[in-house]
């Protein structure tokens, strides 16, 4: 399914980077304000979804630059990895570890929950785009 509309194409092309930036913003502020990995992931996928509707799935895949299933895998790996750090220290699985950085809030605290959230973000993007691209590519 695709729509041949110049307006749509232009909009999509313009929106893509902006939406991605916006999703990054949502992601970062998520720990303190409404937002977080899920929502950010959904926004990012929406950007590519729009692009794929405006152009087609193949071009959207090209712009994405990575196989969506791989993205799922990487997201899951990050989430899982974030749980290992504490195990090396003899603590339970998935315990949050934090370090302080000399940066302004919200960047002053970096910890494994953020890595976990990052995994969530990537996995959501990967899955959503897998859905959408696969459905669009159905003959």
């Amino acid at each position, binding site marked *: 399914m695709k729509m041949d509309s110049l307006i749509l194409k232009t909009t999509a092309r313009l929106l893509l980077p902006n939406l991605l930036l916006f999703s990054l913003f949502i992601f970062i502020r998520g720990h*303190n*304000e*409404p937002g977080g990995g*899920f929502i950010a992931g959904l926004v990012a996928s929406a950007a590519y979804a729009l692009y794929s509707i405006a152009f087609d799935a193949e071009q959207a895949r090209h712009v994405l630059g990575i196989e969506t299933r791989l993205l799922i895998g990487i997201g899951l790996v990050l989430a899982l990895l974030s749980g290992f750090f504490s195990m090396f220290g003899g603590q339970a699985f998935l315990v949050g570890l934090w370090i302080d950085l000399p940066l302004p809030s919200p960047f002053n605290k970096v910890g494994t929950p953020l890595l976990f959230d990052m995994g969530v973000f990537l996995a*959501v993007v990967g*899955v959503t785009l897998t*859905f959408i691209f*696969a*459905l669009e590519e*159905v003959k």
Partner: protein
Amino acid sequence: MEVILAIVIGGLYAAGIYMLLRRSLVKLLLGLGLISHAANLLIFTAARLTRAASPIIPVSEEAFPASYADPLPQALILTAIVISFGVIAFALALSYRTYKIAGSDDLDKMRETKE
């Protein structure tokens, strides 16, 4: 307020179940969607409603106001929403494939009980 939402929940369940009971595959999918709405709303309502502040600690403060919405059910619902999103996507793909193979979306024709 709970009464109103309880009725809404009942209505959503009724609508969803009715759609599940249809012979048409396509309608069944819509039924699944409605039921998942109903279930989420049920958790939300059963955990008691409040118009109080959302469970976010304002930046200026270190502690939390006395009245707040219960964050735990929200987290649960969020999880449930995302899971049912995945499930519905899969169900859609499954229906597509079934339709392609069976050539019909009449569920009554899909009852290969004997082999």
